[in-house]
């Protein structure tokens, strides 16, 4: 279902040369049109979908003067093209605007909490890989056995959990009932022990989906790769089975796994919003919910742009990882 390729654009030439740096530079350059396209989508959604944002923000009862004033403040009185142009250029230069409500720079607000969100997302990703890859391999090796069936049922269950539901269940069990973990999740960034301790439950809640997806992908990729000829040849040649599985099988399975990890980082980022609400953690999610409640329109737009940047960066990293795992990608 979801193995869609990352956004690619016609202009993406590969050119000659195969040095890693050349590869990196090309991918970086290729990311710019992607970014512009995604920003254009944001612009369309924010400026065109709701009609007049000033009206949306102020509500139906607002006086015409108030609306006109707000329109000027938001730059909505300029032509659509002028708005679009300044939106794209300032976003590309890292200027995401200021909050309508607090007047503070969005970059600053986000930078203050971004480490918490990144902690959570990266930890969940690691959790997903650490759980999903071995379980997937184990399931593939025991095809149709007890472990395999259990892995399939549990992974189906895992990816059916809305993150706020798993979060609440974990909170009830481990924080309220057994009291192993704190209810309040905001950690002191400088205190690494505290940071890690408060990360455990949210990571499990959010990483569950990731672990479920990775289990499934690893299982099917391993099954496919174990069925290939050279694996059978390696076995026939007397290479120890354990080595065949871990070295040959896994190397082949790693491409689909990396694809899925890259693809689902977006889902993790999205779901981190819910996790942060449940575990009362500071982060992008908290800011989004705050902006929603205060109708902080510029903040929402800025956040959306920041999400775009994060997604594009993740796609870039995934692509670079391909280059590391599979030298063919570079050469092609």
């Amino acid at each position, binding site marked *: 279902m*979801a193995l869609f390729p990352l956004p*690619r654009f016609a202009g993406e030439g590969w050119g000659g040369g195969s040095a890693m740096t050349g590869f990196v530079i090309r991918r970086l350059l290729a990311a710019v049109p992607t970014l512009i396209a995604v920003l*254009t989508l944001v612009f369309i959604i924010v400026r065109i979908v709701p009609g007049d944002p000033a009206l949306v923000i102020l509500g139906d009862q607002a006086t015409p003067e108030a609306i006109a004033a707000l329109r000027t403040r938001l730059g909505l009185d300029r032509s659509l093209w002028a708005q679009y142009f300044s939106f794209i250029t300032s976003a590309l230069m890292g200027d995401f605007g200021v909050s309508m409500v607090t007047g503070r720079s969005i970059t600053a607000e986000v930078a203050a909490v971004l480490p918490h969100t990144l902690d959570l997302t990266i930890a969940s990703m690691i959790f997903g890989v650490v759980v999903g890859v071995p379980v997937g391999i184990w399931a593939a090796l025991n095809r149709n056995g007890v472990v395999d069936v259990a892995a399939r049922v549990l992974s189906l269950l895992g990816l*059916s959990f*809305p993150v*706020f539901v798993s979060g609440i269940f974990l909170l009830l069990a481990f924080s*309220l009932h057994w009291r192993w973990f704190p209810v309040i999740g905001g950690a002191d960034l400088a205190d690494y022990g505290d940071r890690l301790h408060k990360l455990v439950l949210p990571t499990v809640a959010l990483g569950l989906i990731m672990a479920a997806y990775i289990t499934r992908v690893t299982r099917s990729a391993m099954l496919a790769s174990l069925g290939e000829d050279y694996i059978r040849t390696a076995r026939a040649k007397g290479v120890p089975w354990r080595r065949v599985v871990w070295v040959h099988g896994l190397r082949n399975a790693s491409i689909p796994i990396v694809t899925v990890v890259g693809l689902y980082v977006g889902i993790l980022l*999205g779901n981190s919003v819910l996790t942060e609400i449940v575990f009362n953690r500071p982060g992008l999610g908290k800011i989004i919910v705050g902006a929603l409640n205060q109708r902080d329109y510029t903040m929402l737009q800025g956040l959306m742009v920041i999400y775009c940047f994060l997604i594009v960066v993740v796609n870039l990293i995934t692509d670079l990882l391909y280059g590391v795992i599979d030298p063919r990608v570079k050469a092609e």
Partner: protein
Amino acid sequence: MSTTSELVAPPAPTGWKRALGKARSNPTTAVGVVICLLIMAAAIFAPWLAPYDPAEQDIFNRLQPPSAEFWLGTDQFGRDILSRLMWGGQISLTVSLGAIFAAAIIGGAIGLVSGYIGGKFDLFVMQVMDVLLSFPSLILGLIVVALLGPELVNLVVAIALTAVAPFARVARAPTMALKERAFVEAGRALGFSHTRVLFRHILPNILSEVMVMGTLWLATAVRVEASLSFIGLGVKPPTATWGGMTRDGFENILDAPWLAVFPGIAILLLVLGLNMVGDGLRDATDPKLRNE
């Protein structure tokens, strides 16, 4: 006239029917179907089955734990959780089915036309779809609902928007394969219009793939709807929604944990049931798995 050769092969079921047949023999799918049907029945017949009025407040029975009288307990206004869950199921199902239906029609049409026309147009359309796809659906849905306002129709629009791109992709691939087949050219040679070829000949052939995709995405739609309601962007109170009920329960989690647990379980069950059905259907229609 030359000889009459007799008809050989017996009629064999094709596509969707075969998928259903294969899926039925799979225990996971069967369980999924049962779960989905039970939840749907409870939601559809809520007006007759629900023990209480979902909106009726009863201050003497606030925050009651589960009991013989209130099977799943009551909330902070004394409303019966079970009744609210049954009614709330209607919202979940309406929004998700509406959104997936809309996404399937719009996305399917985009993929169909784009794949059929091909060339630069197709390249452009698919790049737009890729951009749409690269956005986390929850964030996209959240912003769109925030901009449009939390109403049922807007939820449908927002969730549909997040699912359009996958449907476009799923419709496009088989369209591109089918348009190369001789029967499409035969239709053109017979004087059929492009519209006729596209909708009478190509569309029926891709329908089963789009429908399997629909079941798979229904699960996602239910999850996104519940998540948006949990954030506070669902259909407005006092209408019961599962996500909204979980949120209300979460605020009382120290006093009455069941308030959050039961709606959470309801969402989980529906998503799980839909995933089970979708998984079975996909395995049954996936040509790669067919020979297993």
